[in-house]
């Protein structure tokens, strides 16, 4: 958050430097502006790719395709000679650049839509194929014949200029500015486009949308179960990422004044990906640095080095050196550099260091640890905003909060959950116990929409949940935690909770970028609420830490805070006290009781700690081999012969007595 804001002095220096540089270059006759401008195009592309790969975690190996689409949109609409149906209608650069971005974004969504169900390797292969298809299509669309039935065939239609490409492409027109003879206007134009893009990306990252992207990257299932719509979020990443390629492509076409399909091959996609990885995935500064380094090395340094090596070769009389052309070795140096960076600094040049400076285990904690209990949750600490809707929830209606009837789910021949009924009254706490593998977690997955029931009914306050997606079910008021903690590891504690608020916030993409007062207020409220919740669960002083750096018990509490942030009516807790010591367990049990008492929250609890389940539940349902073998009050369950045999064990009674 704060790392993106430069301090005023270096920022002023940077701006002045960028403004003065081209004139200085001109004065020194260094002639590097042209190369730097090109470098900035690739930086803009890398920044767009960073949205897809760095933020949303979707490996895209064919991003150059969107670059091509942007460039050809400019070429087709803004070329006076092209033999296409658009002949003679060279539109202004200033209009077409927006059209290019829109076309790229639209194609990004179209390509994204069918591929979103796949991830990782599969998605990479599909994008790779797409990256190959686009240049081939562009080559072949230069000479096609359309012959439909009885219609007069359209012969030898040239849509894209084929292998020859489009030449010339119209240049931007501004009174008094010579885009055709000078490089400096181009430099400033891409500087402005780049700065605006960076500004927009920065704001998107620090918004509801940016947090959703990162949540998807960290753990898609957990994000879905926290109220983030994964399909919409990923499509937005693809679409917005592609739109920046559209800008870059149309600028590239106009600057070069000619485009050929060869400029958009696979190696461009790979080079862009390398820029992102080299700089540090997800870091805007890093990507800029990575992009600049790679292009400038290629365009300037390599040529200069060639001269140097040749000069040395001639001086020393080494023939091999005297005739060398290092630019032919560019991929070699490039690969070597990448290998070295990945070995020495795998998080990228500007990536967040994996290890923050060493800290000692808290000495105060050490002194207290043996005697003091962990902080008890306080009723007064419950955020008032969480309380308000709660009051209406506990209205005197008798409609059960959760009403499950005949729920059944099979996996192949195995019936994981079979004809299970379960009812939770308002403000009720129901325990769900049973041997390992009895179907408890499957039951949770059915209620939260991760799995579809084969048959049976699930109603929340009378409304059916069957067929809804997990994030929709979160929206209806069901929140959950996971058996094995599933936090967004590389996000801060505060952001983890704010992802929980996602489904209660409304900012759109435009809202995230332009931040009208309503969005500013909403963000401030979200931050305030997240802090309230963290204070309530006892993590108030840890909001800036990465979730993965928290101690185990703290991670469990953070997961509960994240679930509460969705403002649930029903909370599903999957073994919340697993791995906790007795005192932490006590504190958590108290917290659950408090949520019911103060907020009227209904709770469904899977738990193996019998003192917790027996102590807190109103009623308990026992599953074994997917069927309900018992249902009743804790006292009834404790004495039930079937339950003792299948689950509690004969030693259990004795355990209770000897304590």
């Amino acid at each position, binding site marked *: 958050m704060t790392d993106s804001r430069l301090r005023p002095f270096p920022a002023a220096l940077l701006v002045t430097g960028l403004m003065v540089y081209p004139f200085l270059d001109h004065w020194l006759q260094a002639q590097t502006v042209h190369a730097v401008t090109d470098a900035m195009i690739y930086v803009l592309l890398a920044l767009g790719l960073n949205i897809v790969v760095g933020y949303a975690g979707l490996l895209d190996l064919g991003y150059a395709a969107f670059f091509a689409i942007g460039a050809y949109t400019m070429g087709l609409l803004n070329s006076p000679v092209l033999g296409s149906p658009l002949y003679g209608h060279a539109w202004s650069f200033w209009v077409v650049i927006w059209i290019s971005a829109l076309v790229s974004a639209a194609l990004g969504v179209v390509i994204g839509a069918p591929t979103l169900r796949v991830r990782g390797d599969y998605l990479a292969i599909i994008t790779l194929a797409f990256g190959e298809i686009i240049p081939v299509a562009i080559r072949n669309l230069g000479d096609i014949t359309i012959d439909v039935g009885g219609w007069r065939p359209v012969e030898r239609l040239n849509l894209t200029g084929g292998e020859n490409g489009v030449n010339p492409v119209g240049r931007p027109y501004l009174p008094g500015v010579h885009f055709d003879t000078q490089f400096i206007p181009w430099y400033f134009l891409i500087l402005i486009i780049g700065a605006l893009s960076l500004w927009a990306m920065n704001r998107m990252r620090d918004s509801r949308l940016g947090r959703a992207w990162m949540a998807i990257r960290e753990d898609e299932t957990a994000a879905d179960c926290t109220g983030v719509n994964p399909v919409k979020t990923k499509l937005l990443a693809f679409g917005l990422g592609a739109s920046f390629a559209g800008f870059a492509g149309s600028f590239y076409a106009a600057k070069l004044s000619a485009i050929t399909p060869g400029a958009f091959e696979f190696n461009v996609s790979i080079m862009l990906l390398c820029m992102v990885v080299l700089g540090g995935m997800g870091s805007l500064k890093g990507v800029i640095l990575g992009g600049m380094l790679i292009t400038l090395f290629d365009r300037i340094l390599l040529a200069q080095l060639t001269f140097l090596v040749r000069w040395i070769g001639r001086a020393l009389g080494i023939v091999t050196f005297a005739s060398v052309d290092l630019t032919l070795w560019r991929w070699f140096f490039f690969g070597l550099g990448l290998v070295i960076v990945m070995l020495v600094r795998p998080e990228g040049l500007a990536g967040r260091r994996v290890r923050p400076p060493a800290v000692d285990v808290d000495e105060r904690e050490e002194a207290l640890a043996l005697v003091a209990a962990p902080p008890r949750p306080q009723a007064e600490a419950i955020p008032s905003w969480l309380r308000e809707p709660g009051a209406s929830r506990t209205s005197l209606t008798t409609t059960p909060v959760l009403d499950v009837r005949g729920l059944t789910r099979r996996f192949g021949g195995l019936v994981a959950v079979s004809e299970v009924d379960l009812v939770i009254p308002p403000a009720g706490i129901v325990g769900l116990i049973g041997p390992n593998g009895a179907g408890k977690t499957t039951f949770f997955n059915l209620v939260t929409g991760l799995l579809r029931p084969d048959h049976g009914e699930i109603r929340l306050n009378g409304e059916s949940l069957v067929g809804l997606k997990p994030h929709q079910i979160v929206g209806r008021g069901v929140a959950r935690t996971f058996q094995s903690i599933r936090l967004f590891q590389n996000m801060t504690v505060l952001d983890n909770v704010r992802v929980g608020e996602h489904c209660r916030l409304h900012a759109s993409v435009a809202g995230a970028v332009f931040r009208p007062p309503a969005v500013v207020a909403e963000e401030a409220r979200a931050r305030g609420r997240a802090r309230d919740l963290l204070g309530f669960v006892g993590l108030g002083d840890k909001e800036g830490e990465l979730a993965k750096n928290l101690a185990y018990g703290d991670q469990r509490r953070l997961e509960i805070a994240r679930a509460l942030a969705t403002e649930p009516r029903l909370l599903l807790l999957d073994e919340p006290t697993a791995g906790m*010591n007795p005192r932490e367990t006590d504190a958590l049990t108290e917290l659950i009781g408090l949520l019911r008492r103060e907020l009227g929250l209904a709770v469904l609890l899977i738990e193996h700690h019998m003192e917790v389940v027996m102590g807190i539940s109103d009623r308990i349902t026992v599953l074994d081999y997917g069927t309900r073998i018992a249902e009743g009050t804790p006292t009834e369950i404790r004495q039930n012969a079937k339950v003792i045999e299948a689950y509690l064990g004969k030693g259990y009674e004795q355990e209770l007595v000897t304590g």
Partner: protein
Amino acid sequence: MSETSLLELNDVHAYYGNIRALKGVSLSVARGEIVTLIGSNGAGKTTTLRTVLGTVRPLRGTVTFAGKRIDKVPTHRIARLGIAQSPEGRRIFAPMTVLENLELGAFARTDREAIPQDLERVLALFPRLRDRLGQKGGTLSGGEQQMLAMGRALMAHPEMLLLDEPSMGLSPILVETIFEIIRDINRLGTTILLVEQNARMALRVAHRGYVIQTGRIVLQDAALALLRSDVVRKAYLGEK
């Protein structure tokens, strides 16, 4: 310390991530013993196990196994010296069958002919695994995965077994079973270092115990004495 000790940690200091997790841990496990290490989350229990296996290296101090310094020996070689671990979180190979998982446990062994006999021994300890030999590891329930992880560790025919939270996430009846099995394994001659959150059960099966608190051993005694000690009763057994 005692001459018969199989494993010995002497003044071990170690970092785990950015946290100074161990600040001079000394403990010893004699041949044939079950020793338990109890403590709260983040106290350094798992880090202690990791320094034994070499996945975390001590900054200071020594780790000795069977009279040989192992704190600079590569992890895979430590495993071959006769230490096996059943890791926390049951890291089994999910796409492989139960039998394949077990066979992998014996991967580093040179006495091939003794393996079938050990497989039989493991399946006798865990009869449930016998029913599921052809099933994929990932389709087992939590308790069965725990058994598989322990069984796989035993397939290495280790002199010493390190157990990290074997009771985590198991139903009460299975917790009892697992601790009975731990006792059986020990009776068959394997020395055990047991890290547990469930202090009561751990102290019941162990001969001796250590209490670790924020990176230091604060108490050590015979297991029964620890079970009766006030500090342990209050802090780890949850008694008021």
